[in-house]
């Protein structure tokens, strides 16, 4: 490489074996993590052999869909494209993932559903369109800056969310303002369309979700000191934001799937636990 010097171009880097290996290894890493966790928890997950692994019997989960926050791609017309927290719809093989606040879950924006009728399939690439989708909900430090806009933010200390609380420190009630349970329940009603389903099953589901639900959304009054310094402010993809996306070309009729968190292990929680011990 030292001999290459100035002759090493962006195209060379993009097509280099190091980069291609890294892309594949990062993807395999996530699939292996999911496989290992599911195996340890006794959960059934579709698996395959990791054919690129040195150890031939290494298994990994089969990804339903995948989206990258950071990507480097060789484009047509001799261009290299760097994507930063954006994904292109034309490359999405099964929907585009957008990570919301930990307590809000993960959304999957659907691609073109033509010819797709299987449950859980999120649609194929949207033709030759170059739509850019967000891969994560934007976070801001101080939402008060945006009070004059129509944007809404979801806020919480991640340690407060019950479904996240795997390694978190003990809750500090003063650090979060919880909504009334009735409000939580109404929100759950809105997200689950129960028409035609067994009433007992739905009641059991609601009961479980009501008990386990994160207190979302978090309505925090604009009182100085009401929001902890460590709080995370995530943009809520409400009607205003979705409408803005539609105006920019996102075919809203293709829909989206909102995955609700049951339990989630955050690296930050583990780190906090390790640091404190």
């Amino acid at each position: 490489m030292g001999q290459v010097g100035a002759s090493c171009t962006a195209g060379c880097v993009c097509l280099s074996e190091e980069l291609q290996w890294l892309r594949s290894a990062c993807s395999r890493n996530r699939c292996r993590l999911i496989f290992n966790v599911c195996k340890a928890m006794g959960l059934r997950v579709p698996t395959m052999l990791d054919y690129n692994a040195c150890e031939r019997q290494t298994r990994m989960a089969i990804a339903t869909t995948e989206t990258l926050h950071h990507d480097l791609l060789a484009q047509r017309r001799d261009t290299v494209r760097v994507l930063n927290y954006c994904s292109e719809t034309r490359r999405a093989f099964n929907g585009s993932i957008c990570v919301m606040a930990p307590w809000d879950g993960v959304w999957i924006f659907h691609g073109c559903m033509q010819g797709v009728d299987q449950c859980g399939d999120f649609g194929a690439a949207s033709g030759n369109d170059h739509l850019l989708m967000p891969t994560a909900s934007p976070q801001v430090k101080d939402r008060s800056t945006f009070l004059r806009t129509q944007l809404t933010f979801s806020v919480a200390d991640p340690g407060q969310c019950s479904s996240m609380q795997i390694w978190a420190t003990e809750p500090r009630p003063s650090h979060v303002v919880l909504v009334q349970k009735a409000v939580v329940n109404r929100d759950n009603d809105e997200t689950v369309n129960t028409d035609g389903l067994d009433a007992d099953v739905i009641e059991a589901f609601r009961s479980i979700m009501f008990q386990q639900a994160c207190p979302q959304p978090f309505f925090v009054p604009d009182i100085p000191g009401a929001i902890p310094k460590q709080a995370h402010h995530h943009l809520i993809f409400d009607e205003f934001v979705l409408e803005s996306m539609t105006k920019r070309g996102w075919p809203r009729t293709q829909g989206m799937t909102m995955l609700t968190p049951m339990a989630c292990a955050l690296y930050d929680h583990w780190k906090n636990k390790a640091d404190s011990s």
Partner: protein
Amino acid sequence: MTDFLEGSDSVLIPLGQHPLNTLNDIGRTHSGSVVRVSPFCHEHPNNQREVRGWVMDVPSDAPAHALPISFNLFDGVTVVRLEMTEPEVFQLMQNMDDMKRRLSSAVDDIMTLDGKKRATWARCRPSAFPQSLERASRDNEGVVHFLRDDDSAGSSPIIDSEEWAPELSPDGFIGLYHHWHRSPMSSRLCMYAVCQSYLPKACLEFADLAHQVLDLAHQV
């Protein structure tokens, strides 16, 4: 100074001077580059004041240093739908504390890297591959040549030379999620596993490698 920027006037979250300067600096690395700003572009509130939500097009023949290579390249999210029946999902939901405890234990094992070998290119590089950035050289006429392994190029599977342990990266997470899938024909409660991570050491190694190329190019 927004010569290299497109779309900065249509962002949802107004950009301050710092992110605008950062984006301009990124675009300025090569005259043929264009930076487009996503409507969701923003300054992430971390110590690095990272600007997130943009796309950059660089000509393929631009010098390598025109590429902004981050230390977490290929950080991403993978979703896997589990093969669980509805009664099994309900059962898990009714024993949420037990599920959290088992998830905690499983991830604790993953996070304990003592004695485990981390993925790096230097250690795990496949023994056969058609092209190499590291083994490339330039001839007297300035043409770049990649060394080829003729025994394996093109057809053999690309197999790591060493085993490595999977890692959960900073900012990463792994969790269990559910969703009611509704269609005119049926409805079903499905369970998903979601993981966000990259390989910290291998990604940092690649960023270092790219920066070495950058430094050499500047020296030349």
